[in-house]
């Protein structure tokens, strides 16, 4: 399946992904409602975008009491607006902090991979975010292992 891959070492913190994401999510440019966020580290010299890794466990789906979270055609967990009652249980259940609640709509919202063509990957000017094929949904373990190996070998 295809998944968003994030390479923090390529990120320069320009936040273009947030602007593009917010347009897909809200129909306007409003980074405050982006479902990809960029965090700074190490004295403002490095940045890391993060968003829902579409984890195999699907904690948000398990927690939702009304079955408002489903899996869309792109394989992403997606919130059904008509069903969501805005109880925020999913935001508590999510171990990654990537379930959000919108006080304006009173609904939960999250990354739905833009239905299969993620705007953040399109917008990223440094290819820090790519939309790639991966062998398993739970790609984070492989990613971490590979990154650790690279860093130990001194390859950036």
């Amino acid at each position: 399946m295809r998944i968003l891959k994030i390479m923090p070492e390529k990120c320069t913190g320009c936040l273009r992904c947030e602007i593009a994401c917010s347009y897909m999510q809200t129909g306007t440019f409003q980074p405050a409602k982006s479902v990809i966020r960029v965090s700074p580290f190490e004295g403002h010299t490095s940045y890391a975008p993060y968003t829902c890794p579409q984890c195999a466990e699907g904690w948000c789906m398990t927690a939702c009491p009304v079955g408002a979270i489903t899996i869309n055609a792109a394989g992403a967990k997606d919130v059904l607006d008509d069903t969501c009652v805005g109880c925020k249980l999913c935001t508590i259940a999510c171990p990654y902090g990537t379930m959000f609640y919108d006080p304006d709509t009173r609904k939960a919202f999250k990354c739905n991979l833009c239905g299969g063509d993620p705007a953040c990957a399109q917008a990223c000017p440094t290819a820090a975010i790519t939309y790639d094929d991966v062998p398993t949904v739970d790609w984070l373990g492989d990613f971490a292992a590979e990154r650790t190996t690279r860093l130990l070998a001194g390859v950036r």
Partner: protein
Amino acid sequence: MSPPTLAASATKTKSAPARPGAYAGRLLRVDLTRKKCWAEPWSPDEMRDLLGGVGLGALILYRETATRGGKGNVAWDHPDNRLVLATGPLAGLPVWGTGALTVVTIGAQTNGPTSTQANGFFGTNLKYSGYDAIIVQGRSKDWAYLYIDDDVVELRDAKFLLDKDTWETQEALGAAHGLSGHQLSVYAIGPAGENLVRFAAIHGDYGHVASKNGCGAVMGKKKLKAVAIVKGTQALTAADYRGVIQAADDIAHDLRTDPSAKSLYEYGTLPGVVNLSKLGMLPIKNYTTNVPYDDTSTWEAPKLREGFDHRGHQCNACGMHHCHMQVIRGGEHKGKVVDEPEYEGWSGCGWQIGARDKEGISWLNTECDRACVDVNEFGWVCGWVMECQEKGYITKQQLGFELRWGDIKGAHRLLRMISHREGLGDLLAEGVKIAAERLGGRAKECAIYTLLGASPRGHDHRGRWDEMLDTCTAGTGTLESGVPVHVAELGLPTRITPFDGEAVSRQVAGILGRRHFEDSLGICIFTARTRMENLCRALSAATGWYYTLDEAMRFGRRTAAILRSVRLRCGIGPKLERPSARYGSTPHDGPAKGQAVSEQWEKMVDTWYVQVGYDRKTGKPLPKTLKDLRLDWLARDLWGAKK
């Protein structure tokens, strides 16, 4: 007669047309004397007329800084001086490099109008907080900083920030508000601004500087230490979202592939060192020579970048490989995080003062930023003092120590003396022109400045006549016309002989307006290095207007005419539009050897005046020029009702 106030005309509109896309729709007025902040509307018509940035700032200066019934102007240090911190319609959008800030004020160096830009995330955070610009007026009794978090706008006590440099100020404010990275954009002054150094800059977001004409001294005089803007939560609309993204992609394509921008895309301004040295445009040891004293192959852009551990540190939505943070690998400052010097850092803290030590130069460049000193003027001051000491025009006793070419430690000591106004630093803090005129004699003859008092950019303009002419004639006290790229769009020849004064003048005059248009959009000067047609397309898609190249140039020239009118009102007329003796001298060696700008100067200025449609004697834009620019109200102000 003056134009109506922005707020007044906004309220006159009975059935207001819809706000154009991409605008936040409000201006934030901050009165430091009364400690009050409020939002003012501005109308869609005004948005189209003024765009933002320098377009908006120029009219505010014209309207709000006049004295004696429009015959005079307030000085830079008067409480009625305005400090306009404006962004523009493209700020916060996905177009590359659109976090920009344009500072417009009566500057401390020329005591005339200025427009100077910086980037980072100021414009983005401000727009998403719901404001297009901040207009600061009055003077605070105690040191304050302005805090903006959406509709929470407050002047807060800045005592705990005093004497902190600009990086320390940003760190302290981040810690105080529990915010890091781009969640909080901070533009601040350091000790040089607090001590009213005439070439103090406003610095922000770790490495970005609005540097020209002493805007940091204006902020210091107002006792405003910093402006801190939390990343806002508001939405920005666009008339045609896909159109904005498509125009942004086309601009990015131009920047990646066009020969005029490709090296900027890859290495920012670093290639300037070697490229300009080949053309006689690299300032070396205060213009005493035009021949590099060091092996320039070690100054190639990849070597400058790879000589440090580095990491991209881009502005809003930007894909250029331009701004970088770097870590010094060795030497006395090993392990320090600094901002990668721009070309002008390598020239001002390097070649101009005869330095070779790249790690030292990189460190000194960031020290200038931290102190909030304009690196160009620092270079002109420091190099001048070095030459004067070498020749005995400034003695060791006068300065307090010996300062030789290439002495980074000594240069840093000088920087501290200037930014704290200690010893001779008190005089040097007035800038090269005033210091040289006060010392007089042979020392004055070696000083690089314009008679306006402005700092030339970090080049040897004796090999770059277009910039010398632009610097001397500008209404802003720094480069005003624009970068001569894609000039075929404007019907100008794509290549000219650089030492043909007539051709140079026609080119400078021909592109007048381009820079003011760019600096009103909220975009970086480097990501605007595409065809203007692309910028107009982005602006049209964002706002819903049909904005053409013709309208863009007319807008830019209108802004130039307004700024020039303010400059004349400040008492800065055509007689001061000249280089100093050294600045306008003839290189005796190097690639521009023997090219004498002084021999062609008068003719160049005459041609420029004819081409831009200004009166050579008074400096005023001619009535016909103003009529063509649809500035009838300004024509009445300048020439009276009958003309």
